[in-house]
């Protein structure tokens, strides 16, 4: 996300670098570039104006003229002002003193409310809450079914007494849901509501009626990050119409420019609380304005990365692997399990997007085929248990069979084996002399190392390059998970 904005801002700052002193003209030119970059990223005009005015005032002041490195100081100012327009402090979900906490969702049709409801329930469930999903979108065809299916996937109960598709009274459903939640001791109730393609009075009234009926502790406005200048009108309409306590950004994926993301907090005065990407039901994050600002300025987001890794890697599992590595018993079976854990973290591209200075490389990575991971899995899964545990038995005919079984070539199997042997060796040496368990952030520095390696790994042979990518990608993570987390 924010790729083009990041790239353009870094171009802008590049031209400042190396200047010992900044004149007012330098600053004005920089600000003009920034203004245009923000507008091209669909940031609302009013927000751009506020932002530019604040940066200008500070950039022309003492802060910069007295700084040792004025250009760097300007970047710092832009960063802190970005944090400000993104909402400042990280905002956590407000839980009610006496459960259940009632969360109501509102937003336009297509903003991703129903999917978000399920993602939020999933997240809260992992935090040991007992959520109840409530289907109050009785308008959109199949909205009720969709919520039921999603609820089943994450094993969260869905209250859907009305059949939907235009039949049923959403206010009644909402009221009954609260009763049910009290009776069955659900700690959180998440109410999905109906949207429209545009802001209209009938929808707003329904939202108001539901709000009055359930008295929500949080009224979260769900907005599509891809909206253009239009986002302002939509967000204001909801703020004025039903009143919102927080904002959730959806579809903050690869090509989203995130203009709405940058505008909505300032326009509504309500903080952004969550951001979500993609279809996968774990693709939701607590929104941190400071980290997002760093990401936009391409300073990376290592903290989020670490959190994600911690969430994904099973600690017990990691300990087991660490022991195996140390005693030289790391097998292909373990490698496969590690692969599967890595896959849980999300796409490689997503991971790379959070790393500092990755703007350029990420573009190359766009062509990277995530299916390579699947292919590696297929190869290992085509082996017998004996082969997985004692790779030494893999002779020519076995390799041919494995290649056939996995739909790959013998060359690919060979390359995987080479990678595996090398990784095992490296890990073993690390296990002996590597970082001590319990060091504070073992993942971060190693990730950085991985980036460096990636740059160099540009083999002309696509299969080899892919293998390199894989080997290099997984190897540091294996050690990281083994020793720190």
């Amino acid at each position: 996300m924010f790729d083009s904005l990041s790239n353009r801002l870094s171009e802008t700052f590049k031209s400042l670098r190396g200047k010992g002193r900044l004149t007012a003209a330098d600053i004005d030119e920089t600000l003009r570039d920034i203004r245009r970059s923000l507008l091209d990223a669909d940031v609302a005009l009013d927000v751009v104006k506020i932002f530019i005015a604040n940066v200008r005032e500070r950039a022309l002041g003492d802060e910069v003229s007295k700084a040792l490195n004025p250009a760097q100081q300007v970047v710092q100012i832009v960063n802190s002002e970005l944090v400000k327009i993104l909402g400042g402090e990280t905002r956590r979900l407000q839980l009610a003193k006496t459960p259940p906490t009632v969360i109501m969702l509102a937003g336009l049709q297509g903003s991703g409310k129903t999917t978000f409801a399920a993602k939020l329930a999933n997240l809260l469930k992992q935090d040991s809450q007992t959520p109840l999903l409530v289907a109050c979108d009785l308008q959109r065809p199949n909205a009720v079914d969709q919520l039921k299916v999603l609820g089943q996937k994450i094993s969260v109960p869905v209250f859907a007494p009305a059949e939907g598709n235009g039949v049923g009274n959403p206010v009644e459903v909402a009221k009954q849901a609260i009763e049910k939640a009290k009776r069955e001791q659900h700690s959180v109730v998440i109410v999905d509501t109906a949207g429209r393609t545009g802001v209209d009075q009938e929808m707003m009234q329904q939202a108001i009626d539901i709000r009055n009926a359930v008295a929500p502790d949080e009224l979260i406005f769900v907005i599509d990050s891809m909206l253009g200048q239009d986002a302002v009108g939509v967000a204001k309409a909801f703020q004025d119409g039903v009143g919102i306590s927080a904002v959730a950004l959806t579809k903050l994926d690869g090509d989203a420019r995130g203009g709405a993301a940058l505008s909505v907090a300032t326009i509504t005065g309500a903080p952004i609380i969550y951001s979500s990407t993609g279809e996968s039901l774990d693709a939701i994050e607590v929104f941190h304005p400071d980290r997002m600002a760093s990401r936009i300025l391409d300073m990376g987001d290592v903290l989020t990365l670490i959190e994600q890794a911690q969430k994904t890697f099973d600690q017990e599992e990691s300990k087991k692997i660490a022991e195996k590595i140390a005693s030289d018993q790391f097998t292909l079976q373990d490698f496969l399990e590690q692969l599967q854990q890595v896959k849980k973290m999300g796409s490689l591209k997503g991971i790379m997007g959070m790393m500092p200075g990755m703007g350029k490389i990420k573009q190359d990575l766009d062509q990277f085929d995530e299916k390579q991971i699947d292919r590696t899995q297929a190869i290992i899964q085509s082996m017998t248990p004996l082969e997985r545990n004692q790779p030494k038995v893999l002779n020519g005919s076995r390799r041919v069979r494995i290649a056939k079984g996995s739909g790959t070539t013998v060359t690919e199997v060979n390359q995987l084996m080479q990678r595996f042997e090398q990784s095992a060796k490296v890990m073993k040496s690390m296990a002996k002399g590597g970082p001590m368990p319990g060091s504070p952030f073992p993942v971060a520095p190693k990730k950085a190392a991985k980036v460096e390696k990636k740059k160099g790994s540009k083999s002309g042979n696509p299969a080899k390059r892919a293998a390199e990518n894989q080997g290099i990608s997984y190897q540091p993570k294996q050690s990281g998970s083994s020793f720190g987390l």
Partner: protein
Amino acid sequence: MFPFLRRNRKSEQVEQVELPTRSITSAIRSLFPKKIELDDLEEILIRADFGAQASEQITGELKQLAKHLGPTEDSALRVLLRDLLTEKLTREDSALNLKGESFPYVFLVVGVNGVGKTTTIGKLAKWLSDGGWHVVIGAADTFRAAAVDQLETWAKRAGAKLVKPQTHGQDPASVAYQAVEQAVTERADIVIIDTAGRLQNKKDLMDELNKITRSIQKQGLVSEVLLVLDATMGQNALSQARAFAEAADVTGIVLTKLDGSAKGGIAYAIQQQLNIPIKLVGVGEGQDDFAFFSPKDFATGLVAN
């Protein structure tokens, strides 16, 4: 309106036809409910999604023109702006490619999900049917089950034959092949093929479209690759269009949701920056709210009083 070629079902002659006329002017919301102030023009255009660069440029040119001609009247400024926008938006190649004499015409419709792709296909099919064309629709979005159901409803309305995947996740290229085959059998005039909205990366997209194109070329020619974009997405639509244009030979753009709150300045930005013509626009939720993109109608709507 553009003249199109169709095969007469009885005489087998190729004849010129026109589709039922439609205008988009009334659906476009004016940018200037109040008097036009030249000093505010740039901001108004930015808010209408024209983009920073284009807004600056148009404002500059209009100011120049106004200075030359010296009109101060609001109505004169409106005419001036209308003509300026019309001129900049008009292109030679904005008609649908329905002129070849090789039948059936095949349209591929691409774009991410949620921009109104299926609705676009439905409306286009209905419009062509209303004009007396014989239409076949191919549901090659085999990934999203709901897409097929939605298309089915539209196909019924349009009286068009729908060629569906036999199994979930069937190869889209084979559905495309079957659709063209059906069209040839039925002696249909046009085949519209829906494609999957979400593909992981450019390479996947390219591979899939290439494969579909190859399967079509066994029996016909692809006459249009239409990219559907959502006008409410602002500059983001531009980056989406760019990604698709790099991966596929997009021949025209369909801009949906141009009515209502989106002010459609993005139409301008797309044509200027990508050099791809906008061919069709969706201007409402009704099944007939769909028309050719007429720069003059569009500009007239934008500057209306």
